[in-house]
């Protein structure tokens, strides 16, 4: 079984497989959607393309969160805000692309502004008619917010739940702010009714497929970047900060900078995820800032396996697929199913799906090693590792002592 080999693989191999799968999906799914006749068994309906494309964006968001939460112990309850900001930046570009095709046919102002009687484009909307500018903002706005926020918070040594709660306060404040019509982002209706992206109709199948491919490829890139970060000395440092922040300071490391870098990178990743998400779902509104959304992201990562690279991806896809399916199949009872799933995961898969798999593997190989060692007569010392350690990767979860809790 592929999945067998996949899960059993060492960290590096697993990453390679994940990236290949993502690239493969990026190529195959659009092909099956566009090039295969709709009545063929191999045809992938557009409905699925859009759906899975959305999941991939969520997966990137979950991966971004895991970079700070899983590897650096920063439980951000406000990552939805970075996602939403990236989404808004993209949404603003898409709004500007509507041009005079809006309902009021105003060439400059988006409909909601006309309709609220605005006379000119607010300053912060300038530049968004260029894709490159929007693309820059997709990364710069969340990145900058994360940088400023993190700069203050980490310097003041805000940690644990205190940090979690102020990130939540941040996204909540943004939620309220973006709800206001006066903010100039379309109030609670948000930005919608998009027409073109880079000159292509967003509703066209080909565009949708292209966006899907872009999402898959970006996720693959995200996996690669995260993997490189985690594998580097900085990655080890990141985990050291997670486990014993003050100790790293006494070794001369600036823990605040370590965290700030990860937090900013993560925010940028979340922003990109948001930017890819918006053209695929066709709307961005303040609901994305809802603190509950950010908590859900945490839940995805936890379900898949915190502190692993593949875990959050699996978690995001699984939980969201479950949600899509349950809300259709059991519209009145799906919350029981979803709630039950979360409880079951914590009880039976305490380190998430991937984490559990790892520790199960570790136990197995550990036992095998122990058995081998027992055969060898001269055991120098307690030479057997308590848990198989993946060199350069993360130690096996489960057997490993828990990282410092958020508080």
């Amino acid at each position, binding site marked *: 079984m592929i999945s067998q080999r996949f899960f059993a693989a060492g960290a590096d191999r697993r990453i390679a497989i994940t990236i290949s799968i993502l690239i493969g999906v990026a190529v195959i799914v659009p092909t099956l959607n566009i090039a295969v006749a709709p009545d063929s068994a191999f045809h992938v309906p557009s409905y699925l393309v859009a759906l899975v494309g959305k999941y991939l964006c969520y997966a990137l968001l979950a991966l971004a969160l895991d970079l700070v939460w899983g590897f650096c112990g920063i439980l951000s309850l406000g990552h939805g805000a970075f996602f939403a900001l990236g989404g808004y930046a993209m949404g603003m570009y898409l709004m500007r692309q509507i041009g005079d095709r809006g309902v009021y046919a105003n060439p400059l102002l988006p409909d909601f502004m006309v309709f609220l009687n605005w006379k000119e484009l607010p300053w912060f909307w300038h530049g968004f008619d260029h894709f490159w500018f929007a693309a820059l903002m997709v990364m710069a706005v969340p990145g900058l917010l994360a940088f400023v926020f993190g700069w*203050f918070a980490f310097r003041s040594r805000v940690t644990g*739940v205190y940090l979690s709660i102020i990130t*939540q306060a941040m996204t909540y404040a943004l939620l*309220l702010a973006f709800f206001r019509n006066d903010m100039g982002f379309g109030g609670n209706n948000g930005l919608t009714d998009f027409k073109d992206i880079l000159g292509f109709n967003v509703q066209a199948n080909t565009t949708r497929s292209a966006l899907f491919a872009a999402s898959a490829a970006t996720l693959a890139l995200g996996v690669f970047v995260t993997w490189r970060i985690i594998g580097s000395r900085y990655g080890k440092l990141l985990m050291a900060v997670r486990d014993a922040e003050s100790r790293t300071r006494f070794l001369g490391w600036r823990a605040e900078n370590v965290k700030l870098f990860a937090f900013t990178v993560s925010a940028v990743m979340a922003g990109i995820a948001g930017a890819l998400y918006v053209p695929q779902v066709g709307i961005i509104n303040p609901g994305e800032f809802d*603190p509950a959304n950010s908590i859900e992201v945490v*839940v995805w990562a936890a379900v898949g396996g915190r502190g692993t690279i593949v875990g959050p991806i699996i978690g995001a896809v699984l939980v969201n697929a479950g949600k899509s399916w349950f809300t259709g199949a059991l519209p009145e009872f799906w919350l029981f199913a979803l709630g039950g799933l*979360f409880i079951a995961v914590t*009880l039976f898969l305490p380190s998430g799906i991937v984490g559990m798999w790892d520790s199960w593997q570790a136990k197995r190989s550990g036992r095998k090693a122990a058995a081998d060692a027992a055969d060898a007569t001269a055991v120098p010392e307690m030479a057997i590792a308590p848990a198989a350690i993946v060199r350069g990767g993360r130690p096996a979860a489960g057997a490993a002592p828990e990282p410092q809790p958020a508080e």
Partner: protein
Amino acid sequence: MGFLRNVVAAGLMLAATLVCAAADEAELRQLVAKFADANNFQATEAVVRELGATGSPAVEGLLTALSQGSLYVRKADDAIFVGDEVGPDIKLRDPLNGEAVGTVAKAGLTKIKVNNTLRRVIRDALGGLTLGSNDPAVRLAAADTMFKNPDPATIAALDAAIAGEAVDSVKARLEQARASAVLLSDLGEADKMAAIDILSSRADQDSLSQLSRFQASAEGPLRASAAAAVATIDQSLALWQVGQNVWYGISLGSVLLLAAIGLAITFGVMGVINMAHGEMVMLGAYTTFVVQQVIRDTAPGLFDWSLAIALPMAFLVSGAVGLAIERGVIRFLYGRPLETLLATWGVSLILQQAVRTIFGPTNQEVGTPTWMSGSFQLGQLAITWNRLCIVVFCLAVFALLLHVMKRTPWGLQMRAVTQNRRMAASMGIRTPRVDALTFALGSGIAGIAGVALSQIDNVSPNFGQGYIIDSFMVVVFGGVGNLWGTFVGAMSLGILNKFLEPYTGAVLGKIMVLVLIILFIQKRPRGLFALKGRAVEA
């Protein structure tokens, strides 16, 4: 409110029957009969005015009944009656002397419709009529009505009433009512000067607006003196405004504290990131609903006691659910606080949906006992009884909890267990029991908070969601694990909010509070009442 109204109405009835004989009854009956022909609001209004103009106390009862929508026309003969609904039937009384006349099916009657304009006209008419009532409270109410609707034509009547008034407080109000009428009259400057003095001594919003309106139209010394009075009142009101904001802040703070206090235990003390906390509050609110429902069905007389009955019930219900959650899920997660977030999030979804399935998605009506309805005046502060009760209740719960945590062995064991579960066990503390009971206590407290909060918010499956973020904010802002921190945190956030709100509006105010929390945490990274020193870093 309704209760109060009934009392007043009954009093009026009595007064009416006593003096009825004096009025020319036949004439009144003729007037009353006109209601039958009045088929629109204007016509009805005209009849009311005519009745009011008779000055006969005998019509008080029927006017009151009219404003309450219980005046009927019998279809058979166009006769007018006051009616009391009894199931599908209506018990009829004579409109003037209140004698029972019999019972008729609803279909046989037409209700005389009222609207707000009409209600106001009736109230004004009653105000004139009840000036001579035997009950000082009624006279007081009449004086207030006349004060709010000043009419120079009433000066004479007021003069007479003042002359005959024995109760000082009522007399003062009558004089104020007279003064307000004087300002609109064409009396001389001296009278008006005196009136300005009287009004400025009242120093409330109403006298302020009357004086400023007068000031706008007055000239010369009157204008100056009115302006001076306006300025004084403004000043005193500004002070009261501060007091009012403080009070609103305290009462909002109490709500926050009540919502957060259970979390201060489950999260603050035990370290469980309890996302199902809001649902524990919700269960308390639904328990209140069920208790009230049972009382309504079986013993309506006990309704005023419903909250007292609901409190222990809610504590038990939420506590039991909390116990079940702890035994079923949380106990497997100690030492892994982050996973409690995931599991309790799941629990929260399930509880919400369970309530939705059982009770339906819509709001449930939780009534307010009469003793908690309405408001009373403290100087220029209008203090509503339900808020006052919540403040007092919240302080009581807080004091009790503080006692349990700090002064009982159980409290000590709770804290020991959460700080080092393994070592606590080695000290002979039965950790599972302490865990279970602590979580149950936190949940139970959340439940009784739900009883209180059901009085001000809508009881729906989302009830708890509305409080969860604020609760975490309060606990964290105050400093996790510190009950006093939670207390001070809730109160200061409440007061801050209420001082910002008038300037920024509710939305910006809330945003600013959030931003201030973020900034504050930079200054004190471990909350308001941060624990310092090695003990924390260890």
